[in-house]
């Protein structure tokens, strides 16, 4: 199909009244991409850190997520066990295979049964670790890799996501900067921005939760690590 490629590029250039891929245009594009200039960022995405966390929580709740703010990573298993018990949900968990999750003191709650890896269709509760929380819309940012399963963000009925207070940023742009710093030049296969649980309004525009993805999204915000 390289004939098609040439023809398309030529057609575009003809419309622009210049040669295809001309050097001045190349230079302009390189400048634009390398500068990574931010466009308008809403003021609500530029609040001081403490207010940002409050906004993150209230926006996530407004989008239908539940949020539990806890003080230390050690109590994550307790928070999860209590949440599941409180909602009468299964106690079999599938963890995204991140050492920061699998290494938690799960023995504190012996009633929880723990697996990790990519989920089966029968796994009902998934636990994942976010790389960022975005205050402006209460959005979680997760990405694929050797330590994270993307399908786990979509197949279980209940999705529990852990995010640290230090990872809550104001705007999407801040989250992408964090991610660029973390992954370097090897951009991950999948970056998920998740805002609330799955829903649809395709039947008479009535909002119904739990379309194909998780019916419940529970966020655990760990606030001791404000570096």
């Amino acid at each position, binding site marked *: 199909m390289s004939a098609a490629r040439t023809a398309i590029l030529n057609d575009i250039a003809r419309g622009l009244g210049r040669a295809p891929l001309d050097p001045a245009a190349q230079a302009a594009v390189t400048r634009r991409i390398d500068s990574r200039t931010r466009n308008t960022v809403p*003021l609500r995405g530029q609040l001081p850190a403490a207010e940002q966390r409050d906004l993150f929580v209230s926006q996530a709740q407004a989008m239908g997520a539940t949020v539990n703010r806890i003080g230390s990573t050690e109590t994550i298993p307790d928070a999860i066990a209590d949440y599941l018990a409180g909602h009468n949900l299964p106690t079999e968990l599938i963890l995204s295979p991140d050492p920061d999750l699998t290494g938690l003191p799960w023995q504190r709650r012996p009633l929880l049964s723990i697996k990790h890896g990519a989920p089966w269709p029968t796994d009902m509760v998934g636990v994942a670790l976010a790389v960022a929380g975005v205050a402006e819309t209460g*959005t979680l940012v997760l990405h694929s890799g050797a330590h994270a399963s993307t399908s786990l963000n979509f197949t279980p009925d209940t999705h529990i996501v852990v995010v640290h207070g230090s990872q809550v940023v104001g705007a999407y742009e801040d989250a992408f900067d964090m991610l660029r710093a973390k992954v370097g030049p090897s951009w991950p296969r999948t970056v998920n921005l998740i805002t609330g649980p799955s829903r649809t309004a395709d039947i008479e525009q009535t909002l119904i939760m*739990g379309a194909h993805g998780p019916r419940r999204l529970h966020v655990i915000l760990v606030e001791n690590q404000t570096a």
Partner: protein
Amino acid sequence: MNFQPLDFKANARKAMADPNLREALSRVQTNFSGRRAEAVARLPEFDQLRHDARAIKDHVLAHLDVYLERFEQKVVEAGGHVHWCRTPREARETILSLCRKVEAKTCTKGKSMIAEEIALNPFLAANGVQPIETDLGEYIIQLADEPPSHIIGPAVHKTKAQISDLFHEHHAKLGRTQRITDEQGLVNEAREILRQKYFDADVGITGANLLVAETGSSVIVTNEGNGDLTQTLPKMHIVIASLEKVVPTLEDACTILRVLARSATGQEFSVYTTFSTGPRRPDDVDGPGEYHVVLLDNGRSAMVGTVLGELLRCIRCGACMNHCPVYQSVGGHAYGWVYPGPIGAALDPHFIGIEAGQHLPQASTFCGRCEEVCPMQIPLPAIMRHWREQSFSARVTPPLQRYAIRLWAMAARRPALYRLGARLAMGALALAGRGRGRFARLPLAGGWTAGRDLPAPAGRTFQDQWRGARE
């Protein structure tokens, strides 16, 4: 897709007489438009974001060839492939050969208007690959064997009762014989039926809301999560996108995403926004083994640098149709081709020709709301006017209309003659209509009076009244 735009008038008449459609369309105004207004009011920077979003797209279109090449470069670096396709046929055949490569029997599909544009489903089905729509609205219309009637709410023309009937009819053979009538029950049933299909599919096909040149990513936006299951679980992920979707950087993607959901559904943000870059990496836990982007031109490159080039800024949010009095009266199917509403009236003639599409640019009151709410500030009425002019100069416009327009133009260029003619006509009509104040029938105005009365004029022309008021 087959099209019947020559029948727009007949389609519209039929649509206006359909009580189910009337009921379904009555919700568009309150829901989509009302929610958009609320979301916009909550974000003081919304207009500035629209301005930025437009500037991004204008910049991209002025360097489109370079951005596409950069995007391709990044996709290849990440281990993916880009397939350039000039025509729907090339795109269909490319997708089929990719499906055959992995011996696909079924493919799941996320929502894609480009797939509609190239009529992908019937082609795949005829060639032994069963396409399974997974977006609930698309699933509903696939059962009904109908095209989408709205670009973000494909089944917006269906009532709950009709959907209940469809599910009852089609799911009985799956052992689900009980009729379900509530929304939650219908959603649950579709969820349960589609769940295993995600795991069984060999290929997942999605569209793309954006392509990012900086990273070589394709971006999809959904609320259901169907697109993510579609593109994560199978062996191969095929993205089908038209070439104007590319943006420079992640920062630019952020700006467009901020106006997209608010303009479309009135949400602050859609539930799932997903950036996909290449296939799964060697040590990834999951993800597709292959990643292909099918880049469709279909006449878009020829729009660059013309008056139609502004249409390439469109991000397919649907705000124009949600705010269009014509769309709200006739629904999406009346337009007869893939894109309905004001964007369709401006875009479809480019794809199907002005002769076949001659009625579409007429399907407007020129009230201007579409342009007012368009997040990309596309001058839709001006582009419809452009098509009307094309239609006139290509002699597609019917002779009687052409004579009438000529006569009008002649009078309009001679103010004295115009004033005299208007005075005589208004005076005569006022006199004739003085009894009831309106006309139920009038010679030469049958097109108007067939559907409603024509109010009788006040007797004096606007120009006379204006002059009177000033003196």
